């Protein structure tokens, strides 16, 4: 424990270098702006920032991206509460109680609740992240390929079962993603799969091309089809934050703790991120909360639950990324990409080989949460002013950053073409209400799952029962089945 505190202390010192502090502040501000802008999602924003980090030091890069990630879970609440415009899908539950409270003339108090929930949930998850990463990394050293496979399978199933959209559509989306992940040279046989004679496809399709295309270009095309029609924004003369009193906070401590822990658990599940955390937490509060009948009428629990869970999911998502090398969400998949671009492979060994970097990232999360709340508290008015910026201009910039992102991955125009193709696919998915998240996570986790599946089959003579007979693998396989049955059970029970 003392060693952990010392390492974290060193992390704080490392984090205080001018470059890391600058990246932290820039990341927080950009993350808040991304949260505020409805056409720019959190994952898209983090993906677009990636090309800027190529020439940076690895620690500064990850500090920047993590800061954007954490503050992006908070910024969207401003516009959801003040204007009924959710900046992110995460913030949709904020409309039900946050906006309603705002309409009662208590917008400042609603904003205060989001600030407290984001800060508290974030801090709890950061503490758990610090405490959990090292033991999990040590525990993961015992993992063999069946354990990795069942864990990845659990992650992929969770995205399908816990996410939004119809289950069959999510399965189709996931299959397409896994299939895209198989394009290229087979790692065991060296055989070409779905390369159609293209030398560039023989190297596979970079998941960043799919992410930037499906989230970035796809979203812009969807918005363009609506003519960038946005709701008229009401004039808010006195946008400010009013913190709740200690007594008021004490009254919601149970929902707050429940939501924070739920957010952390959902964040830890590979694949499930802040959006799922926010919705599930609100749902749990609506069904089990002390004031469940009043949910949706503008009560504090309806604001605290989704916000605390969303921000808490960040620390949770960083745990499997750092300890196992498996991204816990879309944004952490990009952070994984940033690590790999700088030649660092997260996983059980990273705490041994790059402990200073890991603890600097941990420290940056604590500092980032404090800074996020300070900036959010004092700069709310200039932040929401960005909504005055015409969407046609913002979307044009987003597209250019998407193009640069695609071009810079392998310096090839083929990646640009692929990205445009995935952009159109992302649009079609959006149009036909197929969820995009399983597609993207299929591309990211699919190759990892295939590798561990094949290694398991080679090591255990094609005996698939190994996924059920080994204790950890069996537990994960059972959880996978349970999580897939969950929506069906919910449906049957009405």
């Amino acid at each position: 424990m003392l060693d952990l505190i010392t390492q974290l202390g060193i992390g704080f010192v490392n984090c205080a270098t001018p470059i890391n502090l600058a990246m932290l502040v820039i990341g927080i501000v950009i993350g808040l702006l991304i949260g505020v802008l409805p056409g720019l999602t959190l994952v898209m924003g983090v993906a677009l920032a990636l090309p800027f980090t190529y020439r940076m030091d690895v620690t500064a890069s990850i500090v920047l991206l993590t800061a954007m990630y954490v503050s992006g879970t908070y910024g969207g609440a401003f516009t959801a509460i003040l204007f009924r415009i959710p900046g992110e899908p995460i913030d949709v539950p904020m409309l039900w109680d946050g906006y309603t409270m705002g309409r009662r003339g208590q917008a400042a108090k609603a904003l205060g609740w989001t600030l407290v929930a984001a800060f508290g949930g974030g801090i709890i998850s950061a503490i758990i992240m610090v405490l959990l990463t090292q033991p999990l990394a040590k525990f993961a050293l015992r993992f063999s390929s069946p354990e990795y496979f069942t864990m990845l399978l659990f992650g992929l199933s969770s995205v399908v079962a816990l996410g939004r959209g119809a289950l069959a559509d999510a399965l189709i989306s996931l299959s397409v993603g896994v299939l895209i992940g198989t394009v290229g040279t087979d790692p065991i046989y060296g055989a070409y799969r779905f390369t159609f004679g293209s030398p560039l496809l023989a190297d596979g399709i970079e998941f960043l091309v799919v992410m930037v295309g499906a989230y970035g270009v796809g979203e812009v095309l969807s918005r363009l089809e609506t003519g960038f029609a946005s709701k008229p924004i009401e004039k808010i003369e006195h946008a400010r934050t009013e913190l709740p009193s200690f007594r008021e906070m004490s009254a919601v401590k149970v929902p707050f703790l429940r939501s924070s822990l739920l957010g952390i658990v959902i964040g830890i599940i590979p694949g499930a991120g802040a959006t799922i955390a926010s919705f599930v937490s609100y749902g749990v509060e609506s069904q089990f909360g002390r004031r469940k009948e009043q949910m949706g009428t503008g009560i504090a629990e309806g604001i605290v639950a989704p916000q605390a869970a969303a921000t808490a999911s960040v620390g949770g998502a960083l745990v499997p990324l750092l300890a196992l090398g498996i991204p816990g969400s879309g944004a952490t998949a990009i952070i994984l990409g940033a690590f790999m671009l700088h030649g660092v492979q997260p996983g059980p060994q990273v705490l041994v080989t790059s402990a200073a970097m890991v603890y600097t990232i941990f420290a940056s999360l604590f500092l980032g949460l404090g800074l996020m709340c300070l900036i959010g508290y004092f700069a709310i008015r200039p932040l929401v002013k960005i909504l005055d910026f015409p969407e046609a201009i913002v979307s044009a910039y987003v597209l250019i950053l998407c193009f640069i992102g695609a071009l810079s991955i392998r310096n090839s125009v083929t990646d640009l073409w692929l990205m445009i193709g995935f952009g159109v696919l992302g649009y079609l998915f959006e149009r036909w209400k197929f969820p995009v998240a399983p597609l993207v996570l299929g591309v990211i986790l699919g190759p990892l799952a295939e590798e561990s599946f094949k290694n398991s089959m080679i090591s255990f003579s094609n005996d698939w029962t190994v996924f059920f007979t080994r204790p950890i693998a069996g537990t994960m396989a059972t959880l996978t089945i349970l999580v897939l049955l969950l929506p069906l059970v919910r449906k049957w029970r009405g």
Partner: protein
Amino acid sequence: MDHSLFRAVVPYVVGLVLAAVLYVYAGQIEYTPRPGQLGPAVWPQMAIGLMAAACLFEIVRKLTGGRAETRGIAEILSREGEAEDEPRFPLLLVGGIVLVTVYAILLLVLGFIVTTFVFLASFMYLGRYRNHGVIWATSAIVTILCGIVFLRVAYVSLPRGTTPFDRVTDAFLMLPGL
């Protein structure tokens, strides 16, 4: 078959046909088999099988007017009535797809600087923004900023363009103070 049912079934029929084609294609992957080991086609064929099964299930469900679809937990827990139908402009969408395609075609010919400048201005007009001064000024500023950041600072290898357009990129790179 009524029009709305046809529209609802089309994506799944397309998915099913695509799955069949890809399954056959995956079966033709060339490799030297190793005894006791699964081939390179097994994993993609599993994914294709899952996709085909889900498509088939949805086609049958929709055609037989069966039970309501099973939705994800986050969807079940969210409230209905949040989605609001917005008017759609298919021509704008087509224009957007054409514009990004033209960008990719012209990039190697005109180079990053010229293509980006033209694209930015064109996209803003396509997005129905009409403040000409802002359009041209912001297009120029963002092009210059991207050029400085990615060509001069991050050294991303962005296309220079073919003669004579490469001279614009060269001139940009030689601008004093950059």
